C-alpha cells in the first residue's frame, strides 16, 4: 500500500505525526538531541516554564516504584527570560512544533508567561499546566476545581496569541467535569493525564522516600487509568484530546488514540530509552501499514 498519512491537526496546527513529548521529561530537547533528530517528532512539549526562575523542591525528588516512578521536582525552571533567549532559539532549528508548557502560582504569573510568549516566533501552542501535584499554590489547586479550571482557561485564552491546551489532573472524581470546564473556558485542546499523587515509604530508614513526602506517579503503572480518562474526556468534549500516561511503545500509543486521543505524549519512557519517541512514531506507521489503514485519523476514537 501507499505510505499512510501520519499527520494530525490540533487547533489548526499540523503535526507530522501524533507523537510528542510529555512536559518535564524532555527538558527543551537539548539533551535528547544528542540521540536523535528532534525533527522526527510531531511536537516537542517543553518543561514547564514560569515568569521567574523556580528552585523546585528539596531532594530526594525521585524514586522508583513497581512499573513506575514518583517525582516531586517542584517545577525547577530558569524562568521565561532565559527560556526565550536560550531554549527557543535552540528548538527553532528543528522542523517540529514547539509547545511551551506554562506554569505559575497564580493567574497573574501564568499571564505574565503567556504575554511574554505572545510575540515569540515559532511557538505553535501553549500547554497550561494546571495539574502539577508538587507545587503548593497554583498547579493542581487550579486543576481540581471546575470553576477554577474554567476561570483560568478563560483568562489565559483572552490573552494568549497561540491556541491553548489545558493540561488536566487525574486527581479528581470526574474527569469529564474538568474537561467540560476547560472547553467552556475556551480551551482549544486538553491534555491528560498529569501524574497521580502517590507516596512511598523507605521501610529500612522509616522515612518518606521523597523529601516532599508525596510525588506524582508516572510510568506504565498508570496507563490503564490514563486510557480510561482519555476515553471519558474525549467523549465529553468536542475539542481535541492529547493522551498521555505510561506510554512506552507504539501499541500503548495506539491504545490511547483508539480511546479518543488525537495525539499522544511520551514521558517517563524517555528516561529508560532516549529514542523511544521516534520508535513509537515508526511503530504507529508500521501498525497502519499492517492493518491497511491509509490515515492515522481513522483510529482516533475508533472504539467508541
Amino acid at each position, binding site marked *: 500500500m501507499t505510505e499512510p498519512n501520519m499527520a494530525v491537526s490540533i487547533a489548526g496546527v499540523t503535526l507530522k505525526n501524533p507523537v510528542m513529548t510529555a512536559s518535564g521529561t524532555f527538558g527543551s530537547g537539548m*539533551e535528547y538531541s544528542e540521540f536523535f533528530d528532534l525533527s522526527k517528532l510531531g511536537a516537542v512539549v517543553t518543561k514547564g516554564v514560569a515568569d521567574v526562575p523556580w528552585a523546585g523542591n528539596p*531532594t530526594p525528588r525521585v524514586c522508583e516504584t513497581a512499573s513506575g516512578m514518583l517525582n516531586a521536582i517542584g517545577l525547577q525552571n*530558569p524562568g521565561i527570560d532565559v527560556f526565550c533567549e536560550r531554549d527557543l532559539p535552540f528548538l527553532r532549528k528543528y522542523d517540529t512544533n514547539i509547545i511551551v508548557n506554562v506554569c505559575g502560582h497564580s493567574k497573574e504569573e501564568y499571564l505574565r508567561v503567556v504575554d511574554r510568549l505572545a510575540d515569540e516566533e515559532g511557538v505553535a501552542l501553549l500547554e497550561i499546566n494546571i495539574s502539577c501535584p508538587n507545587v503548593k499554590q497554583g498547579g493542581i489547586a487550579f486543576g481540581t476545581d471546575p470553576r477554577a479550571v474554567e476561570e483560568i482557561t478563560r483568562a489565559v485564552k483572552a490573552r494568549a496569541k497561540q491556541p491553548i491546551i489545558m493540561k488536566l489532573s487525574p486527581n479528581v472524581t470526574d474527569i469529564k467535569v474538568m474537561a467540560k470546564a476547560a472547553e467552556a473556558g475556551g480551551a482549544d485542546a486538553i491534555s491528560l493525564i498529569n501524574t497521580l499523587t502517590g507516596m512511598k515509604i523507605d521501610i529500612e530508614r522509616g522515612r518518606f522516600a521523597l523529601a516532599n513526602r508525596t510525588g506524582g506517579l508516572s510510568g506504565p503503572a498508570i496507563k490503564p487509568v490514563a486510557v480510561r480518562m482519555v476515553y471519558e474526556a474525549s467523549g465529553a468534549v468536542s475539542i481535541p484530546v492529547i493522551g498521555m500516561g505510561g506510554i512506552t511503545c507504539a501499541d500503548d500509543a495506539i491504545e490511547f488514540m483508539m480511546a479518543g486521543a488525537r495525539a499522544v505524549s511520551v514521558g517517563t519512557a524517555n528516561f529508560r530509552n532516549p529514542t523511544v519517541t521516534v520508535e513509537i512514531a515508526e511503530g504507529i506507521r508500521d501498525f497502519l501499514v499492517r492493518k491497511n489503514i491509509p490515515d492515522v485519523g481513522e483510529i482516533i476514537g475508533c472504539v467508541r
Partner: protein
Amino acid sequence: MVKEIAEVVYQSEIATDIYSMLLKVTFARDAVPGQFVSLYSADGSRLLPRPISICETDAGSGTIRLVYRIAGKGTKEFSGLEGGDRIEILGPLGNGFPIDEYKDKRVLLVGGGIGIPPLLCCADSLEEPVFAVGYRSETYLLEDLKKRGEVHVATEDGSLGTAGNVIDAIKADSVKADVIMSCGPMPMLRALKAYAAEAGIPCYVSMEERMACGIGVCLGCVCGTEHVDEHSHVNNARICKDGPVFDAKEVTL
C-alpha cells in the same frame, strides 16, 4: 555518550554484597576518571537506570570495570550476570575529576564505603596518588589500591588501620597533599570540605543522589550550589550532568 548493549566479560563477588563486573563497551577510551554509567534492568517493571561509577577503564581491550554494592532489586539482578551475558548501558556520563590540572601534584584520593571504586581510575592518570580509604569493617579493593600508591586505611571497628573515619586516618598518619579528590557518603564529604578549607587546599567531591534520567533532563538529582547554576539559573546544579564531581567550595553539603 552512547546507549548500547554491553557484554559481560567477567563478574565476581569481591566482598560481602560487593561485585566487580568487567564489561565490553564501545566507549572505554572516551571515559574519564569520575564519570559514571547507567545500567538498565532487564525487567521492564524496574524502569529507571542504576547509576554506577566507573572503577577502571582499559582502552586497549575496550572494557570498563564497575564495582558496586547490592542496594536493591536492580543491583541484585545485575549481580547475577555472568560472562557472556548482555546488559543495556548508557555512558560515559557526567564530568569527572580535574585530573589533568593536578597530574604531577600530590593528590590525596579519599573514598568511603562504596565511594572507593572510582579512585582507581583517578590513580591510573596521576603520577603520585595517595589514598585514604574508610571501611566499616570488611575491606575490599585494598590490593588494587596498594599497587597504585600509598594507602591510609580507617575502619570503624578498628580492625585495620586507624579506628574511626578517613579524616581520623589522615590526621593520625599526618598525610599531606596538594589537593583532595573524594567520593563517599555525605558526612565524609562534609568533613573533607571542612578539612581542606582548614588546610588551605582544593577539594573535589563526587556527589550522589537519586537519579531518574541520568543525562540532565529530569532535574531529579540536584544539589545546592554557591553560585547560580547555568541550567535553571537558581542554585541547584544537576549532579548527573553538571557533576557528579564538584569543587567542594561550590556545593552545599
